[in-house]
C-alpha cells in the first residue's frame, strides 16, 4: 500500500507538470503557436522602416490582421522591402489601400498600420504577392528634431 501511495503522488506530480506546460503553451504563448493558419503575403517598399522588426504586428484600425514576415533591402533601388503575411480571414482589402509604420504609445513598439482604400468598381482586392504602392515611412525622431532645429534657426 505504501508503494501505491508513492505512485499516486508521482502521478499527481506528472499531471501538475502537464497542466503547467499546457497553460504555458495555450495561455502564455498561444499567439506564436498559431503560425500555421492560412495566410497570404503582401509586399511594401518603405523609404525608412525605423524600428520595425520581424514578427511586428500588422493592424487595421487597431485589430491585428497579420505579422511582418521578413525585412530585406531591395537591391535595385536600396529601399527596405517588407513582407507581411496577412491572415486569409481578411482578404477583402482593395488595391488602393495604404500602409504606414506607426508607433503604439510614446515608448511602444512599432507596427504596420494598414488603411483600407475605397472600394470602387474596377479595383481588385489585394492578393498573394501583391505590392502595396502607397506607403508612409516611420517617423524618425532624430530627423524630426533636425527639421525643428533648422526651422527655428531660420525664424
Amino acid at each position, binding site marked *: 500500500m505504501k*508503494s501505491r501511495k*508513492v*505512485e499516486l*503522488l*508521482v502521478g*499527481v*506530480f*506528472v499531471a*501538475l*507538470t502537464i*497542466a*503547467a*506546460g499546457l*497553460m*504555458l*503553451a495555450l*495561455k*502564455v*504563448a*498561444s*499567439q*506564436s*503557436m498559431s503560425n500555421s493558419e492560412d495566410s497570404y503575403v503582401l509586399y511594401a517598399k518603405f523609404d525608412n522602416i525605423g524600428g520595425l522588426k520581424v514578427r511586428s*504586428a500588422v493592424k487595421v484600425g487597431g485589430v*491585428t490582421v497579420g505579422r511582418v514576415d521578413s525585412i530585406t533591402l531591395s537591391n535595385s533601388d536600396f529601399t527596405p522591402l517588407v513582407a507581411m503575411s496577412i491572415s486569409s480571414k481578411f482578404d477583402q482589402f482593395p488595391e488602393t489601400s495604404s500602409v504606414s509604420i506607426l508607433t503604439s*504609445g*510614446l*515608448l*511602444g513598439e512599432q507596427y504596420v498600420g494598414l488603411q483600407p482604400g475605397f472600394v470602387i468598381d474596377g479595383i481588385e482586392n489585394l492578393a498573394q504577392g501583391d505590392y502595396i504602392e502607397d506607403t508612409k515611412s516611420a517617423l524618425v525622431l532624430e530627423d524630426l528634431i533636425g527639421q525643428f532645429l533648422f526651422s527655428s534657426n531660420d525664424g
Partner: protein
Amino acid sequence: MNWFINLGENTLNRLEMLGRATLMLFGAVIAKSQPLKLIPLTIKQVYVVGVQSLLIVVVSGLFIGMVMALQGYTILVGYGAEGSLGPMVALSLLRELGPVVTALLFAGRAGSALTAEIGLMKATEQLSSLEMMAVDPLRRIIAPRLWAGIISMPMLALIFSAVGILGGHLVGVDWLGVDSGSYWSIMQSTVDWNKDVVNGIIKSVVFAFVITWIAIFKGYDSTPTSEGISKATTETVVFSSLAVLGLDFILTALMFGIE
C-alpha cells in the same frame, strides 16, 4: 618550490576527482544499464526528490511572481505601460527565474539530501554490503537518483513558472487593477514558445544534470565519517549553486545574447 608542489598536487587532485566523477557517471548511466529494472526505483526517487520539493517550489514561485508584479507595476505605471506587466512577469520567469531559482532551491532541498543519504550509506558500509551481495551500487543506488533528479527538476521549473505567472495575475490584475485582457494578450503576443519556453526547459535540464551529478558524486566520494559527510553536503550546495549561476550566464549568452 613548495608553492609549485602544492599547485601541482592540487591540480592533480582536481583532475583525479573529475575522472572519478566521470567514471561514476559512466558506470551509472551507460555501462550495463537495465532500463526495466530501473523504472520502479526511479519512480520512488522521483517521489523523494521531486514530489517532496513541490511545496517549497510552489510557494516560492507564487511569492516571486507576486513580488515581481508588485515591483514591476510601481515602475511601469509611471510610464503608463502597466499593460506590459504580463510579458515582464512571464518573460523573466520563463527565461531566468524559473530555471535558476528552482535550481537553487533544488540544490538546497534535494541535492543536499542526496549527498547526505549516499554519504551515510557509504559511512555505514551499506554500499560495500551491496557490492558483497554482487549488486552494483552504481546501478542500484546511483542511477535511479540521477535519473530522478534529471526528470524532476525541469518539471518543478515548469510548475514554478506557471505558478509565478498566476501569482503575478493575482497581484497585478486582482489587486492592482491591471486589465486582465491586456495581461494575457500582450503576454501571448510577446512570449514565443520555442524561444522562451523551450529554452527555459533546456536550461533547467542542464541545471538538473549538473546539480544531481555534483550531489551524487559528493556523497559517493565523501570521506566516510560524520565530518566528511557534513563537508560533502556543504560542498554540494555551494558548488552546485555556483555551477548553476555560472552556467546560466553562458546559456543565456548563447540563447538570447546574439541575435
